Each structure stands twice: as C-alpha cells, then as structure tokens.
C-alpha cells in the first residue's frame, strides 16, 4: 500500500483586491480568450490579466475591443468555437453592450462576465449601485453576488462549473460591489491548479461547437414559428440550473472545504431564533451582520440573510427561510422608480416569492447606498429598528425608507 499525501488545495496567500482575485480565478480556470475594454471599476481586472499574460502565468488570447459591444460579441463568438472566455464591465459600459449580452443568453453560450457594480450615469459616478447587473434579470443569465475577494476567486471557478454544465449552458455574471470589493485589498488563499482541475472539467460544448468538422449555423432568423419553443428551452435550462448549482457547491466542498453550506444560494447569520431579519446583496453583509451581532448583545432577536444567487432565484429555499420570521427588511442598493410601492428590485422579487406562503412576514424596504454612498453599521441598526417596528405595527408593512439620503 502506498501512502500518498494529496496535494494541498491552497498553495499560497496573497493580498488581492476583488478584481485581482477574479483575475486569479480566470488564470486558474485556464481561460482561453479574454476581451477587454476599460471602465472603472472593472478595469483593474483587465490590468491584472494582461500582466499575468505578459508574465507567462496565463496562456490566453487577449483582445482589446473598440467598445463594450464588440468586447461582448468577441467572447460570445469565442465561446461558440469552444474557447473558455471571459469579459466584464461596469455601469454604463455594461449597458452599452447589452444587445450582445442578450444574444449570449439566447444562444446559450456559457461565458463568465464580471460586473463591477457601478452607478448608471448621469451624473457621472464611480460608486456602487446594482442596477447595471440587475438589468440582466429577465434575460436568461445566471447572476450572483460575492462579498469578499476570496469568494470572488472561488466563484469564477464555481461560475464556469455551473454555466458550462451540459444541462445548463447559460452565461453567468459575477457581480461585485464597485470600490468596496473591486478595489479593497484583502488576504486571499489561492488554490492550486491541480485542485482546480479536479473541480472544473475542460470546457466542452459537444455537438454545438462551431467548427469546420462540425458544420452548424447558430441563431438564424426564426420568427414566430420557433421563438416560443426556444424560450421554453431556455426556461428549462434555468430550471435545471438549480440542481446543477447544488451539485457544484457539493463538489466544491469536497475539494476545498466548507466555506459554503446548504442551501448555497444564501447565507443565514444568527437567524435560528430570530424574529426580524435583514436581507441584501453584496458587501452590505458586513455592516448588516455586525449590526445584528451588536443588537443580539442587547437582547434583540435579529439576524441577517446574505443573498448570493439572484438568477436563478432560490424561490423555494428563500420562501422556506423567510416565512419563519415576523418581519423582513429588504435592502436594495438599486432603484425601480414607479414600481409597486416605489420599492427596489429586490423587494419585488422577495415579496413575490413570499406571496404564496400562507403566513407571511411583514416586509419593509430600504433604498440605501446608491451611487457608492456608504452604508454604516449605524444605518443597518436603524434598518433593524424599523423592521422590528414593522413586526409590531401593521401600518408599517410595505413601507419603503431611503436610508442615508440628505434630507
């Protein structure tokens, strides 16, 4: 019997920004084609990747596009010929490439994109807002948020694993808060290429690969005879993605340890006997959880839910989770002007998700942190207090409060 020590899954620790961590994920995923066009805060990832290629750490085609639209088209085409491809953008640049983003989903090409969340101009602003990524919500993309550089690196691998699965084959957007995550340097454990190879199989588009040996046409004009059936196919892929997501996280845990636990789509913090919780996307989790910890010390039964996956939306899992509480405060770092109750996009998703539940919590909504405005621990404590009031007073159910605006 030979005793061989398995190779360590993490090889070193480095101080990395969120963008640099994504670049390491792309390097470890051995991506074949990168297309780039600068816009802050996404830009730092293209800087990091070009350096890795120049230093011989990554063997990939690096194509500077003339705009986001061309950038996104380039990776879409690269993906169709069997290249693992990466691109990304932020804010208005992301919106400029939107036509290409839509067809990448309808053509079911599993590209991974970074969205470094940025306010949509005007006015010109670099700071985080989630409306850029949320614009994908009905387009047939996978979409999730990460909250630390470590998660960012690992979710490049998890993202490709799910997107490229033959049952799914959908593009995936990895969203991260501009500035607070894209540009903040943290210590990150970097996995070994061997461990990554065990987790992430090579990209194989099978008989859908565009190649002279496999003559096919992709996306001819189809019109009303075909469109509805194709939409139905895409829906089915989004449904199958739910099983693949769970499986991918379980495989990830088997190799890399228990950083992510069921149901994977979201993390619960201090919720076990909680009566009131806040739920949000992205880095607001740190002040949110810290506020919950402090209020617990004063006897408040509060907790925090960090929603990671937005598409597919974890309907059943989140309904089961949130129906236990007396009141839920939904934090939106976005706006949906003119929508029901003038709430944010996440409010509508969560209210809709909870409507079929026989007993529902009161739901209040907080619009906060727009355009990169900071959300402090004190802001989160105020949100908890308002949500606790909603649990006691019927009248506050459905209230939308702007937190942190000068008024």
């Amino acid at each position: 019997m030979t005793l061989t020590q398995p190779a360590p899954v993490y090889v070193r620790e480095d101080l990395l920004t969120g963008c640099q961590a994504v670049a390491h994920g792309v390097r470890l995923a051995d991506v074949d084609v990168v297309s780039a066009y600068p816009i802050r805060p996404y830009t730092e990832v293209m800087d990091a990747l070009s350096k890795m290629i120049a230093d011989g750490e990554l063997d990939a085609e690096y194509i500077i596009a003339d705009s986001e639209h061309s950038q996104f088209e380039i990776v879409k085409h690269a993906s169709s010929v069997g290249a693992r491809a990466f691109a990304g953008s932020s804010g208005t640049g992301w919106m400029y490439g939107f036509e290409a983003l839509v067809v990448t989903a309808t053509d079911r090409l599993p590209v991974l994109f970074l969205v470094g969340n940025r306010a949509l101009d005007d006015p010109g602003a670099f700071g985080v807002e989630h409306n850029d990524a949320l614009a994908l919500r009905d387009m047939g993309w996978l979409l999730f948020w990460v909250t630390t550089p470590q998660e960012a690196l690992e979710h490049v691998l998890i993202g490709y694993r799910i997107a490229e699965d033959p049952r799914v084959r959908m593009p995936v957007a990895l969203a991260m808060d501009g500035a607070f995550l894209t540009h903040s340097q943290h210590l990150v454990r970097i996995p070994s290429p061997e461990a990554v190879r065990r987790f992430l199989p090579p990209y194989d588009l099978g008989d859908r690969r565009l190649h002279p040996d496999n003559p096919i046409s992709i996306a001819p004009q189809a019109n009303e005879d075909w469109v509805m059936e194709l939409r139905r196919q895409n829906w089915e892929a989004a449904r199958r993605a739910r099983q693949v997501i769970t499986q991918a996280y379980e495989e990830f845990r088997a190799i890399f340890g228990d950083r992510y636990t069921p149901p994977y789509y979201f993390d619960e913090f201090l919720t076990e006997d909680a009566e009131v919780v806040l739920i949000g996307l992205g880095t607001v989790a740190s002040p949110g959880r810290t506020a919950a910890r402090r209020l617990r010390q004063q006897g408040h039964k509060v907790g925090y839910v960090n929603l990671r996956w937005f598409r597919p939306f974890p309907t059943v899992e989140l309904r089961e989770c949130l129906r236990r509480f007396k009141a839920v405060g939904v934090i939106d770092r976005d706006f949906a002007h003119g929508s029901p109750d003038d709430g944010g996009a996440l409010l509508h998703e969560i209210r809709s998700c909870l409507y079929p539940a026989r007993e529902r919590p009161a739901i209040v909504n907080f619009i906060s942190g727009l355009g990169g405005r900071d959300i402090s621990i004190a802001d989160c404590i105020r949100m908890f207090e308002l949500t606790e009031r909603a649990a006691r007073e019927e009248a506050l159910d459905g209230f939308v409060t702007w937190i942190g605006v000068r008024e």
Partner: protein
Amino acid sequence: MIKRVEINYRGIFQKTLAKKIGGDIVMVASRMGQVGFSNGRYSDSPERNGIPCKYFAFVSPDLSEEELEAECGAKLDIDEANISVVLDDTMVKGVEPWGWHGIRPINEKVVEGGYLLVVSRKQPEELLQWIGRKPYDYHLAILPGDASFAGLWVYKDDLTHERVLGAIAALDPSLISLEAVEAYLRDKMHEPARAEAARQAHDEVRQRVRVVKAGEGRRWPYAIPELPKWNEFAEGVVVRAVPRHFEIGPRGQSRNEQFKRFTTRTQRPVVRFDLCTKCMLCWYDCPDECFDPTPDGLFDVNYEYCVGCGRCAQVCPVKECIVMVDELRFEDNSSPWEFYRRDPQGYIRWAEEKKGNERIVYPFVTGTGVATVPGEHVPEGQKTVVKKQDKLEVSL
C-alpha cells in the same frame, strides 16, 4: 481595537507608492498575528496629476476581519487616523480632493496622541506654520527626504516605500514592528538594502518626533462645504454656470469659487515681469486659464487656481522669465503682478530669493525622479530668448 493609517499622496505620481505602502502594512501586520485590509479613497480621481488623494490601511489585533470591514471598509473616508502619512510635504498647506470636499487641513483626521508623519527636508516649525490647529496634543514626525515622484503609471523604486514602513514602525511598533518589517522585506525582496533602508528610517524618525500642543498651528482659513439636501439643487443633473465676467486686471476673470485646485500644486511658476516679451504663450497654453491679462500687457498669475503643472515655464521663450519653485517657499496666493507694479525692484529681489540657486526638474513621464540643475540670476530687463525643446522630461 482598530488602528487606522491614512497615506496622503499626490495623484498619479505617487499612486502605486501609496498602494504598496498600504498593502505592505497589512502584510506585515498579518505576520504579527493581526487582521487587516487596505483600500484607497474611491471618490478620489488619482489619475489627475498631483491631486491630493488618500490610501488607507486598517489593522486590528482582536477583531474579526468582517467586523473590521464593517467598521472601516464600506466607507468613503475615515473619521480618524492613528497615523497620517504625508508623502509630499507641500500637502501641509491643505488638501482639496476632487470636487466638493473643500480645502482640508492635512492633519484633519489625526487623533489625540496620534502621528502626522511627513516626508520632508523642512523643520517641524516650518511645516507647522501651515498646519491647522487641533484642540488636543498630537505628534509631528519627519522622515527626512524628498517627495518620491514617479512617472504617469510608473513606480519609482527609490526606497521611499521601505523607509515609510520603517518610520511607521518607529511610531507604533504594535501596529508593525521594525523586526517584522525587516523580516518581511528580506523574505519578499531578497535584497538586504531594503530592510536596511527601513531600519535607518526607523532610527532617523525616532529622533524627529515632536509633540504638537493643542492650539499650536494655523487657524484654518477655509470653510468646509456643506452639501445641499436632495430638494435643494436643480433637477436633471443641471449645474448652474459661474456668471460670466471679464475685465482687464488681476482676478478679472470669473472662476469657480467652490473648487480652487491650488492644493494640487507642488511648485508654482514665478514670473519675472521685467523679462516678459508679452508673447502671450503662458496665457495661451495654460490648461487652467490661470493667467489674467493686465492693462500693461503683462499677465498676472492667479495662484488660487494654478495647479503647478509647469506648462507656462516650459513654453516661455525667455531665459529665467518663468521658473517653477517649491510651493512651501510662499506665504500666500496674492497677485505677483500687483507686487511688481508697487515695487518693481523689490519684486525682482523677492522673486530671485524665492527661486534660489537651483532649478528643480521632475521628469514625470519616466519617473527617474527629481533632479536639480543650476539656475542663473538674470539682471533686470536682460531678455535672452532661449529655444526650448518641447519635451516633457530630461534624461539623467
């Protein structure tokens, strides 16, 4: 407990330097068993030449990384700093970041008993004449040296990075100890000179720490802007123009009172009006339109708005007529032309005294660093036309 370090740096030229210092504070502190992270003030626009910007490092011996992040991470600026590092001493005149923050004292964030660490060749008293008063005691520490100015995207490897780490270790060894700094630099860079530079700076700074008493320093002359409420400004992202106004003479052109920009300056152009040929090139080329036409055909400099880019000195065709001079040699932003009109000989003596014997050259593009060349004291009215090469740098 949280230790906050802010690094005040000059946009673009010191951006990489500041990031390296911030990151390495975290790396050294983590080797001492602490948690930390580092980021920049995101609302800055550090691609603008010379604009005052900030980088931060946050370290805690007892908090979790998440709690530290919650306290310090999702914030645009910090409320207080245990150590404020100043990488260019001309920033002691105040710092005005990109838009709407107003001109702030360089020590604004320094806590009671905290440290303001300035890279400078000046004496503490020279610096304190510019620095705002605090209601409590703190320390001023000086790391002897010149501001490290690199090129547009270049990092100038002149050991400032290592020396600042050593200096911080001298001020607060519980944040980063000298031994940990030396061990880190030896492990990372494999060049003994780097750890030696840190130790030397540590020893130098320990001799140059001075208590600044409550009330010592300057009464801060600039108002901090109060931002309007959501219903107090125009809809549709409309910003009212500054009312148009022009008349011949000093300050005769209307300019934006809310954003004066002069804290971006490390050097200012000193004009010898007696040598001026009235060619207008300075007025024409100035990217910030700082030159005001005067009734005698000369051009006054409005130092409130001059960012010290040096373009006027570059295009001026007369020897010694416009020369860039260290900003800290000047008391205020008053009109040089008015001084010249009042007392021509006195002004020329004053200008030559300020210029001194050396001319400073910053080859910004290649980042080879500051160089000095001998200057010349030209007699009154002796106009010598020089053909200047229109290039942005000198090779040394």
